[in-house]
């Protein structure tokens, strides 16, 4: 009894630290987004009155009017960029999960020649900095006429995120008890049936976690779309936001508002997926 109360206190305070660490700067962003540019520049923390002009500009799609009549039309593209981000995130996560789950099962549970080499080649690419392959990759993509297309972006994202996905899922498959699968095989299932009916349901928790990791990292991707998604047709919100940085001045409340809005989909995703990460019945707390 005593121990569990102590562990509860420890856990509650860890969660408190976690919330402060993660939300502190985000709250600062929220305050910035509700301030005026003049207040931000003067280092004023709490706005005197709530200024919603940044959100209005982004959500109405009408652009922002400044004194010289500048109506940046790229701001009207905010909704479009959010949609681009959402589409490519869903596509990439789906494709990645299908390919990585099957591949991880094959490498983790099946015996066939070359599996170690294949796994090594896949995971080995994790260590490559994007800069090492960027120029030749551009040439490959250009030859395939895939620059600025959704398909091209999808392929690069899949190749960039696959190693981590496979590594995580491979470890996951290896940790799951084999007894159930073996029982299914004894009952006359084929290997593939055993995978589909037994192993896949067992992997649900791990798949949910990896899906979250993949979706979030695709959503936040910056360097790849900066170079390979040059047009409004595929430009994601992370790249669009950098264009709000002006030549002489940056409208900080607008930038912060865009940042806050761009956080909503990943936050919803995290809430949705956390329900599927199956909790343990008896944890390490005893």
């Amino acid at each position, binding site marked *: 009894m005593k121990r569990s109360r102590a562990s509860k206190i420890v856990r509650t305070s860890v969660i408190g630290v976690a919330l402060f660490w993660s939300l502190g700067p985000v709250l600062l962003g929220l305050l910035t987004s509700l301030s*005026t*540019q*003049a207040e931000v520049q003067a280092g004023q923390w709490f706005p005197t009155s709530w200024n919603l002009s940044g959100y209005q500009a982004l959500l109405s799609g009408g652009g922002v009017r400044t004194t010289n*009549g500048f109506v940046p039309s790229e701001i009207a593209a905010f909704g479009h960029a959010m949609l681009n981000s959402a589409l490519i995130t869903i596509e990439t996560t789906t494709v990645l999960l299908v390919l990585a789950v099957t591949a991880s099962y094959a490498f983790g549970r099946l015996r066939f020649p070359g599996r170690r080499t294949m796994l090594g080649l896949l995971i080995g690419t994790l260590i490559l900095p994007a800069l090492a392959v960027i120029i030749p990759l*551009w040439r490959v993509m250009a030859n395939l006429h895939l620059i600025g*297309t959704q398909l091209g972006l999808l392929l690069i994202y899949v190749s960039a995120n696959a190693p981590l996905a496979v590594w995580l899922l491979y470890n996951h498959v290896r940790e799951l008890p084999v007894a159930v699968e073996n029982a299914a095989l004894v009952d006359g299932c084929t290997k593939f049936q055993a995978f589909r009916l037994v192993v896949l349901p067992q992997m649900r928790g791990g798949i949910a976690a990896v899906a979250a990791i993949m979706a979030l990292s695709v959503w936040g991707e910056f360097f790849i779309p*900066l*170079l390979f998604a040059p047009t409004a047709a595929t430009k994601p919100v992370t790249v669009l936001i950098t*264009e709000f940085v002006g030549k002489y001045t940056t409208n900080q409340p607008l930038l912060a508002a865009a940042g806050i809005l761009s956080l909503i989909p990943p936050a919803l995703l995290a809430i949705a997926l956390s329900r599927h990460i199956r909790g343990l019945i008896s944890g390490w707390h005893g």
Partner: protein
Amino acid sequence: MRGSIARVVTAVAALALVAAACSSGGSDPVGSAIASGPSPSIAGQTIVVLLPPWANVPKDILQTFTDQTGVKVDLQVTGWDAIRNKIAITGAANTPLADVTEFDWSWTGQFGRAGWYLPLQGKLDPAMISGLQNNGAFTIGSNQYAVCYSNDFRISAYNKKMFADAGISQPPATLDELTVDLQLIKDKGIAANPLAIPLSATEGTSTAWYLLTLAYGGQLFDPNLQPAFTSPDSGGYKALQFMVDAVNKGFVTPGAVSLTDTQSDNRFTSGSAAVTIVGGPDEMVTANDPSQSKIAGDGSFLLVPGVSGPGATFGLPEGLGIMSTSTHQAAALAFLKWWEQPATVLALQKSIGLLPCSTSAVQSLVSSGKLVGGDTINQELQHVAPLFPQGAPPWYGDFSTKAGSIINAVARGDLSVQEGVNQIAAAATQLQSGA
């Protein structure tokens, strides 16, 4: 999967568009009757144009080009750094990127020499070219790689109210007067750190040093591109000394060593600083806008102070270049000609605030009173000189980065002024020998 569906849809849409274009071309003679006359060889083509956010041309203005020539424009807007990176990558990979792109004055040495841009001499109206300010910045030898579309240059600004509060009636014309005025404003407690100047290890800091070098009557390099800023009586040495003095006398905030140019400028618009040395020609638009500035109504342009009167300043013009890999060079050339038409540059100034490079266009803006601070801008334009009369050398970008970090180290007190200028000179020499 969606990709392929999208491609089918695009293909169908493209077919429909082609069909529509053909039918309208066949039945509608108006399209070919416009004065300038759409060349039959380029009408119907689409050119890709890659520009930074501040050159995001509104659709209705772009439409006038399509009306004139029959050429459609696929305008792609992306960050300035990203444009530079993409040009470099596609140049190295020898693959097409766009037909027309942003061409910054500082890219002339690198991108021109690398052969990635089409030389334009002989292809454009010489009278139009000679009417443009700053155009030498895009030229190496006889090759001209771009035409200027944004007439950017450095100009100073001051806070009228703070100067009046300190009992100063005249804005400073020389750097010595400026020093006296700043001391007065500081002593009277009107501003604790009255000067805004960026000293972080960034491009803006190098720009400030270049500007002060010219203001002190100096040059960065001699005609043979040898460093001309190492002796204590040179402009560059005095400029760096001025920056260090500004730190030691408390004219700038100690935090300036980590402020970039826009952050430093914020000290001016937030009312913490009375003078900002390095600003752009649209500075007063933001400084006098109450939603963006705490000093609305008090900001005013100031001619860059010099030794015995207004000092020299320099231009940072941006141009439009045509890539060598472009397969629509005739249409791209038509786009450049259209952009430089008086009607186009005036429309662009009005809608997105681009200051035209054409001298006559600037004059008409000033005389009609359509330019905020137009008179001072016009006067300052008389003092604008190119930073590199011979065109920016290919190592300019790298030099600028190195200079920024060294000036930052001097401002932090890690190096003396003499050590600083010596290191900058050494960097320049090393970069040149590597080229």
